[in-house]
């Protein structure tokens, strides 16, 4: 069951320009996969391929794919717009249409993009959704986002309510509630818009592919326990999680990508090499950090560069778990298709309560032998940001390490202050140095 009609994506890279940082094969492969996906999306109206918009946390990509539909992830489009310098105009467009300065900039970027003709991040036109699959996983804004898109596109919406882990676990009755919703609401909605019947064998196949990719992803992320770390588990890992968070979980291409990525990373680990960064390899690593919160996308390379300039590598991050937490044992289970999707949705990082998030950060600091941890607090993301100052204190208390706190935004360039962030980061790293030398420890 190939996931696209032209066969597996090839690793073909354009000739390198002088001075350009060499790209790993996995990076080229991912770029080609994304380009092919957007090409398929552009042609979807002609090929009559149904299109389902959904969100990264709690996405049911395998299920969507099993109906022959293509997923679109609006947050991915928004962050890509941020990285490509387009979000400022999109946000302005949305604010002119009456959206407040105070709300999520992903939403405004996406609305602005839709108002401006819905040209996707690769420059191709995105098709209208045939269905909005609103998986409500730990972010209130998602609900409003799809209510807004429903008004814009006038298409059907199906709501999957994912109960929050208020008590630090997915209660059995909540799991059963999720399964029942998938069975009685989501599947019929997909059958309706695609004209296909639910095919559980097909779904199981995709779930088994997910499992393979998840094994490789976990292996990749855990290489950061090595010294030097062969990966940057925040800035670098946002690329690593890209395929599995978006359209490629449960696909042959996804499996191939993670297999290739794992091979490369393990090779770097064996050679005692650090990650490839935009400023070159980071083999010498003075600081090992854990990071909480999403990155800023408008100044992504500049932000990353502040770390590499100080020879700081991120060894674990929570943001790379918003699309699924796999390192504590969860894998998609083809033997229990609906149950495993329920477990997946309930277990995403955004669906965890604050004590669980604190536990995870403290665990990372210890397991990855970090020198410290940093919180990048996002102005327009209450789901992440509300409570982070208390989390900072709790993690400090549990680990005995001081934490750092910087502020930026997702895709609104007006809220990125390079000087402020750089000053705080440098001061923080100096504090780590001072503690190493026994000053103020």
């Amino acid at each position, binding site marked *: 069951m190939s996931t696209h009609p032209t066969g597996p994506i090839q690793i073909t890279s354009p000739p390198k320009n002088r001075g350009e940082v060499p790209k790993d094969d996995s990076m080229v492969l991912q770029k080609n996969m994304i380009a092919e996906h957007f090409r398929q999306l552009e042609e979807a109206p002609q090929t009559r391929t149904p299109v389902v918009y959904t969100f990264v946390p709690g996405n049911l990509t395998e299920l969507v794919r099993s109906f022959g539909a293509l997923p679109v992830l609006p947050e991915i489009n928004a962050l890509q717009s941020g990285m490509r310098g387009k979000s400022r105009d999109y946000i302005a467009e949305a604010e002119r249409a009456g*959206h407040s300065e105070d709300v999520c900039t992903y939403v405004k970027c996406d609305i602005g993009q839709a108002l401006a003709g819905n040209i996707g991040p690769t420059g191709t036109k995105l098709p209208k959704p045939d269905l909005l699959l609103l998986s409500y996983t730990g972010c209130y804004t998602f609900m409003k986002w799809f209510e807004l898109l429903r008004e814009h596109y006038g298409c059907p919406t199906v*709501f999957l*309510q994912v109960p929050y882990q*208020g008590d630090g676990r997915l209660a059995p009755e909540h799991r059963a509630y999720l399964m029942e919703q998938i069975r009685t609401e989501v599947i019929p909605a997909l059958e309706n818009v695609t004209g296909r019947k639910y095919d559980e064998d097909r779904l199981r196949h995709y779930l088994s592919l997910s499992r393979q990719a998840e094994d490789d992803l976990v292996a990749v992320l855990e290489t950061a326990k090595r010294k030097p770390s062969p990966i940057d588990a925040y800035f670098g890992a946002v690329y690593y999680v890209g395929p599995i968070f978006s359209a490629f979980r449960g696909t042959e291409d996804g499996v191939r990508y993670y297999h290739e990525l794992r091979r490369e990373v393990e090779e770097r680990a064996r050679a005692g090499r650090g990650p490839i960064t935009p400023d070159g390899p980071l083999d010498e690593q003075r600081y090992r950090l854990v990071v909480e919160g999403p990155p800023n996308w408008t100044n992504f390379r500049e932000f990353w560069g502040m770390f590499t300039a100080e020879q700081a590598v991120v060894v674990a991050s929570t943001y790379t778990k918003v699309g699924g937490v796999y390192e504590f044992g969860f894998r998609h289970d083809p033997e229990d298709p609906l149950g495993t999707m329920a477990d997946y949705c309930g277990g995403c990082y955004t669906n965890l*309560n604050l004590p669980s998030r604190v536990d995870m950060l403290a665990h990372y600091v210890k397991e990855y032998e970090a020198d410290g941890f940093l919180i990048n607090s996002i102005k327009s993301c209450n789901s992440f940001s509300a409570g982070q100052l208390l989390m900072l204190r709790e993690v400090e208390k549990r680990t005995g390490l001081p934490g750092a706190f910087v502020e930026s935004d997702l895709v609104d360039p007006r809220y990125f202050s390079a000087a402020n962030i750089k000053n705080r980061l440098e001061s923080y790293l100096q504090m780590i140095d001072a503690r190493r030398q026994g000053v103020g420890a």
Partner: protein
Amino acid sequence: MSRQEIVSWARSCYEDVRFEKPRAWLADHPERRAVGHLPVYAPKEIVWACGMLPVGIYGGGDQVEIIRGDAYYQSYICHLPRSVIELALSGRLDFLSGVLFPSTCDVIRNLSGMWQLLYEKIYVRYLDLPQIADPDLATRFWERELKTLADDLSEISGIRASDDRLRAAITTYNEVRSTMRALYRARGEAPWRVPTEEVYLLLRAAEVTPPDEFLAQARAYLAAVEEDTSRPKDRCRVIVVGSFCEQPPLGLIKTIERAGCYIVGDDFLLGSRLNQQDIPVDGDPLHQLAASLVRGAARTSVLYDPDPEGKPRLMPQQVRESQADGVIFAAPSFCDPALLDRPMLRAGAEKAGIPCIAFQYSENTGQFQQYRDQAGTFSDSIKLWGGA
């Protein structure tokens, strides 16, 4: 008791940031317990059936100086949670045996986790309100959540929420809601006799007093209003939308009315009125509580609206029902539910030719001149030209 005395009583409840009223209720019988809840909606019937007093926690308004609370929140998070934390850290909430955090937004949701970290011995419950379109499945989900809550609170209070106790509590809160509807009806019929300031103070009093005390005061108020012979003033009629969670300062409510806008519809303290109909007292009480919310809740930004036409139609419908002339969108700064909904609601209103204005506030806003100017101009434009 005179009308002035009733309003003074309600004002004293509103200004009581040390929660002396619920403390006094607890002190009358040492075995009593109280449970707090954040906005918007909590099932008070269950708390009351367990012999506990439900206490609404709406922050410190403009009366509490924030000293410690600001250390817990970044500048871009709304004001309510920092004043709630201030109340807690200053010991003002230490009489509560538990706190309920409804799924109003991500900030209140995360505040539940903060409570778990800060107060390990206090019962904390996050209430995931039912959101899905299928009423039967949503009812089953919510009924199960209510059962868990009832069991937990029964254990804390030592008083089991039996079916009989639950039915009695439902009856009591049906009376509370019915009396609130009567207050709103009286205001809608003659807003010159029933200023929103007074109705609002009574509703705030209901958040911190036992239901029977509120009922006695509110009924006496309604009787007193009958004697009022005030004449209407030349003002327009507006509904205020977006103030369901963090509450506007009382001065802002007064400013809107004094600037020439009778408020004849609002979503202040919406949780206490979210159930729009009486809840049946026959059958299984938890099921009736659950089904009533799922099938009869007022449309609000904190609940998903499965009807694609729901948002565009909401303002025209509310304006029609209130016989209002326009809409004032008044939302707290950084309030995701209200601000994300506003473009949809406003578009629906404007498409129907309903005049609208919008502004933002914080619970501790102290300067009202800009609101006076906006509301005054809005009122003038409606009165002079029939539109903004």
